[in-house]
């Protein structure tokens, strides 16, 4: 197990290093100049002012030198200072990362808590009305894009029924209850799509596992179909479900880009988006690195979970 962990960790670090180079280059490749934007529309047209600020920010040095400086500081845990706000990027990241993780956790919770039962019901009641209905619900779930289901949620629960806040963020310390109620709709928006996937995979995998001899044996011993399914088939059917959850959990991170904008949730993705609009290089780089790190961390955790359920995964490594 330890060797497996070491192997996975070193490849994760290598991925992160490659990501750092890519992140730096991508940030510089987008057209637009942070200095002109910073100086604003009013004074950005003055070449002297532009040159002065570019020098102040070190943007007049060669890309190679800039990258070297950034990478060296990054290794020491210094993410640099935002061009716009003059604040350390790390402060922003530490504030934003937990909020995005909260959203992902909320989404996962929705997906698993709703998706698993839905999948089980549609596998168990295959060929019956209740099975067909749960299949339809899961298909709708994974076919509706986040921006569609998100808007519907806002209109129905926020504007019409007014039972949940349509958008916004309140720090937990200020008002825990309001904080959680603000989390509900974005979690649903991000999780519904994934719920559909979990339900479909659970269903397929369960039906598949039910064909195994040991299930037939359990049935032959007199267990009801439902009991045999839950007791004997379900644990083994979980392996592909966990794999899918793992692969797609990273996609949840991508989904936060739309959900955070739609629900005005100030997480990591909205930081990245607003930093990109003003070409705030240190913030763009910092938040991308953080996103990569989270992505890698999630797949690492999923690998560990899988190897826990299925020793063959460990052996393969």
């Amino acid at each position, binding site marked *: 197990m330890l060797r497996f962990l070491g192997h996975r960790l070193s490849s994760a670090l290598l991925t992160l290093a490659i990501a750092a180079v890519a992140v730096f280059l991508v940030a510089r490749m987008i057209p637009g100049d942070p200095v*002109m934007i910073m100086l604003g529309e009013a*004074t*950005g*047209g003055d070449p002297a002012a532009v040159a002065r600020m570019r020098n102040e920010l070190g943007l007049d040095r060669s890309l190679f030198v800039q990258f070297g400086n950034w990478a060296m500081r990054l290794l020491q845990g210094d993410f640099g200072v935002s061009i716009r706000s003059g604040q350390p990027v790390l402060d922003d990241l530490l504030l934003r990362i937990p909020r995005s993780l909260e959203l992902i956790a909320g989404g996962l919770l929705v997906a698993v808590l709703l998706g698993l039962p839905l999948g089980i019901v549609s596998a168990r009641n295959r060929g019956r009305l209740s099975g067909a209905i749960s299949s339809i619900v899961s298909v709708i779930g994974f076919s509706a894009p986040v921006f569609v289901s998100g808007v519907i949620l806002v209109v129905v629960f926020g504007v019409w029924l007014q039972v949940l806040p349509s958008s916004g963020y309140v720090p937990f310390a200020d008002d825990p209850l309001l904080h959680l109620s603000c989390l509900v709709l974005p979690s649903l928006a991000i999780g519904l799509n994934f719920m559909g996937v979990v339900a479909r995979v659970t269903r397929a995998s369960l039906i598949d596992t039910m064909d195994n001899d040991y299930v037939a044996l359990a049935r032959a011993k007199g267990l009801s179909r439902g009991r045999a399914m839950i007791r004997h088939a379900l644990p083994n059917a979980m392996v592909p479900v966990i794999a899918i959850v793992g692969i797609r959990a990273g996609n949840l991170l991508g989904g936060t880009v739309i959900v955070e904008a739609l629900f005005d949730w100030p997480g990591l993705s909205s930081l990245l988006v607003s930093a990109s609009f003003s070409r705030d290089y240190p913030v763009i780089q910092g938040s991308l690195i953080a996103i990569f790190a989270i992505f890698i961390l999630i797949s690492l955790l999923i690998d560990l979970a899988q190897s826990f359920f299925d020793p063959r995964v460990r052996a393969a490594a």
Partner: protein
Amino acid sequence: MEMTRRSFALTGLTALTGLALGGTSLSAFAAGKAGTLRYGTVTEVTNIDPHIYAGNSWKVLIGVLYSPLVTFDTKGEIVPAVAESWEQPDAATIVFRLREGVTFHDGSALTADDVVFSLERIRNEATGATLRGYLVDCTIAKIDERTVEVKKSEPDASLLSVLALPEAAMVSKAWVESGVNIKSQANGTGPFTLAEYESGVRARLAANPSYFVEGEPKLETVDFRMIKSDDARVSALRSGQLDMIDFVPWKDIDMLARMPNFEVDSASGAFMSVWFNATRAPFDDPRVRRAMAFAVDREAISRAAFFGHGTPIFSVPTPPDSPYFNADLKGAVSLDLEKARALLAEAGHGEGLDMELIVYQGLGIYTTTAQILQANLKEIGVNVSIRLVEWSDLVSRKNGADYDAMIYGVSMKLNDPDAYSYYLGSESAYWAKPIGYRDEDLEALLDKGRQLTDQAERKAVYAKAEERILETMPWIFINYREQAQAYTRKVKGYVHLGGALSEAAPAISLPKIALD
């Protein structure tokens, strides 16, 4: 055990909530201020340096945290702020007498040295201040502890209006020099203090108990939420999470106005134009620019892009209620395809020409306007290819002179017609300077207008300047866009202002707003 822990937590929570509520009402009672206004604003403010313009919402925030020497009231008149009175011994000089007992939010007293320091900070090139161009040839002198003289090298009729803008904020010398991060901290003399701030996300403003205007502000707190998405801002208002929003999307103005629980105030604010790179051929030929101006169907743009909330401009953007409005120019540039084709032929482009139009992709008012312009110009043989860009790309191209033409919306900036210099004067870093545009005739007229003090004489000069602008047509003026503010009916005392003050209107009103 589990049960006990949970009920313990619940009790604690209840106690805390009770404490917080009790605390709030107690302090509100003591200060005679009440209520929290939840305000949804359009721009994500990430830099709150009071001297560097950073969008609509920045202006509102800065306007209530800081105060200038003088300010505008809700009628648009200039009234005392940090200065209690002022004199103009000659047309180039203003002497300000400071109010006694004005303190910054950190408790220190505002002195003449702070005033000098603030204005010098704006003049200093390294600051990159928005008003630098206006104040660069000023000398600022402390006469005594309560008197400051601002003197320009030449008479300047617009000086007082410039100093009344929120961008002319007074900062504390000691505070700025102590090395604070002025981009994310605030210490002004305004009606509200910055209690909490998260860059680009939200700000909580608390009433300044020692604000120099008696009885203001009336609110205890303002929760300022920055919500860039138009739909999220409107939904938050409709679902009762906000009391007021700015920058109501044009498509929603009528919808909200019809709803019984909301008030919508709307007035002409910024105006939309096409800016030419007037030094790049063939757009360096005024006839080419004029030809296009006569081909634009402004009514169609107002209807389709602004849902009827955008008055067409058939001449120049001076508002009809301005004392400088020139009725003779009314309808000077209306739709006339014959004339447009003739002008284009005269310039040697009778067979047509191609051009690229740079358009901001984020707002329908920009993209729809561009599509109509494209169709209009096709009629006279100008083939427009539209390039959609993001705002920062647009600004970079503008500042780097990398465009044929672009659509841009700006406000008149000043209540004074000298606003034209801000954009069209050859020193304007905003538009003219980066492309190297200079029209000698216009330049002379703008200089003259600034130096005169008699309103009738000035009016005659600016009438000529406007004629010259239409003759050379560096910009095609399209229409005013209405700027609308929407709020629930329990918000009392908001006064909406149009024209040059439309952006500052919420800041001017906030100290006077109360909740029912």
